[in-house]
């Protein structure tokens, strides 16, 4: 089985976000970078699949400034992925260009069986790359997958509103976007980390994937910090008095009910 996993490096959620002076984006100095948490589920599912088949390769692919994003690939290789591909580019391409470049890089490797991704990246929260990737590769795709099996045919399940679940059956190669609940990602072991340093890493440029930096569809600009929230109003007294005052404030001051 030839398996690919597309991963993204994102700022750790605990990191403080500051804007650039011209508000064209965020200040990147001092940010702690981690692998997007949903991508960990994607890597884990790929490794489990390779293990269950007893054969095959797991290739992790990422796009971004190579000096930085390669760390995410090494983390995935330390978990057990076989090799990596980094597409060197500026940061913050839009979902369209990101997906097209990833598709280009995967197609260069020949035929594939499954591409795993996270359901979304927690930085821009677009949840669009997996779908555009699948469309570009011309294969079926299930988003937000919480259950996956590939014995015989491929079955993928996703959870929708009200806790309902949609189960799909897929023929042939596909893209699967992993959601929380799919599995429990393994930690990279110390020997794994040592081995990862020597695993093959391929470097591509955007042009190698057939794309150019100008081929975006949306641009993010005029970044703003959220407006300061007015200070919290503390409601004192015993439980009865607190409840009474709160209900009055919600109905008369906040008028939300």
């Amino acid at each position, binding site marked *: 089985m030839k398996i690919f996993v597309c991963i993204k490096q994102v700022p750790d959620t605990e990191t403080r976000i500051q804007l650039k002076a011209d508000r064209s984006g965020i200040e990147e100095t001092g940010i702690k970078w981690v692998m997007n948490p949903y991508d960990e589920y994607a890597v884990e599912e790929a490794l489990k699949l390779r293990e269950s088949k007893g054969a095959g390769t797991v290739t992790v692919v990422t796009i971004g400034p190579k000096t930085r994003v390669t760390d995410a690939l090494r983390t995935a290789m330390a978990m057990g992925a076989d090799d990596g591909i980094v597409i060197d580019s500026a940061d913050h391409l839009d979902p369209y260009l990101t997906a097209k470049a990833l598709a280009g890089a995967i197609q260069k490797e020949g035929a594939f069986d499954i591409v795993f991704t996270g359901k979304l990246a927690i930085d821009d929260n677009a949840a669009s790359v997996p779908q555009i990737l*699948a469309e570009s590769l011309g294969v079926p795709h299930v988003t937000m997958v919480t259950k996956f099996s590939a014995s015989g045919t491929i079955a993928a399940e996703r959870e929708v509103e009200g806790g309902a679940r*949609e189960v799909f059956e897929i023929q042939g190669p596909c893209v699967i976007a992993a959601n929380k609940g799919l599995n429990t990602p393994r930690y990279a072991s110390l020997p794994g980390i040592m081995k990862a340093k020597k695993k093959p890493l391929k470097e591509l440029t955007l042009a190698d994937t057939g794309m150019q930096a100008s081929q975006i569809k949306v641009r*993010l600009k005029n970044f*703003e910090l959220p407006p300061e929230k007015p200070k919290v109003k503390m409601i004192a007294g015993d439980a009865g008095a607190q409840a009474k005052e709160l209900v009055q404030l919600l109905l008369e001051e906040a008028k939300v009910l």
Partner: protein
Amino acid sequence: MGKVFVFIEGLQDLKKGSLELLTAAKASGREVVAGLIGANVKGLAAKAAQYGAKTVFIADASTLAAYNPDTFAETLTVMIKESGADVVLGSSSSLTRDLFPRVAARLDSGVASDCTILQLTSGDVKARRPLYAGKCTAEVEFVGSPVKFVLMRPNQLPVGSPDSAATATNKDFSPPAGTGKITNKEVVKGTSTKTDLTEANVIVSGGRGMQNGENFKILEELANAIGATVGASRAVADAGWVPHSMQVGQTGKTVAPSLYIAAGISGAIQHLAGMSGSKVIVAINKDADAPIFQKATYGLVGDLFEIVPKMTEEFKKALHK
């Protein structure tokens, strides 16, 4: 002047989010085309007309009862092409978030997803969306995108009043056969009949301070009194006290209700990421230093087991006078 296409999910009724978008579309002065895909959805067309649609495109077939990415994407692509609209609006849901990027890719266009601000005029569309777990927002500008797709979070825009005399021209579309590469095997119904968290206007959430799943009863009683949906922190979902579908936060659901009541939730950054867009936040916590109070509109320090039942009582008194 361009046309605007509003995609409407084919459920029993039009969702509030769809009404918000029809209202915004009508207010822009553009000609409004609505698109309905599903089984037994024809009946919704009249309501779409009352909220501003001049034309309603309908694909109504039993084969469209369950969401299939393949057939839905093909149907919507055909509808949008036929409409000639250069802006397509949808209310964010697990269906539209799946569907819109696919259709946008087919039309070589871009999507602005998860937006909280929409500025639609007769000639232009701009949107703004939260980034980095709500720590900042940015404007989305479309460049070289023949069709501009915008997915709005529900509960962000006003709903206009319906014009009961308004009618629309309906046009039927037959469902495509599909490629057969992806088929619906099963739809397992959820247990919840309440409004989904992502669409709820009022949410009551419980955290580890609830102590066990059984105690969520008191939150449900409060929720029933005010028409709210119950949510939870990850600590609670991971402990198995409630299903994961109830989790709010970075790895759960992003919600933006008018009122969010957090009981026994400390206010970790990952939880705040999913609910800080709420208009009014009420925090109930026995620890006066809990970080949740920094994001709250109203704060109550005390024991939730004493406060929550009293709130239910007070709400019942005030709302059912």
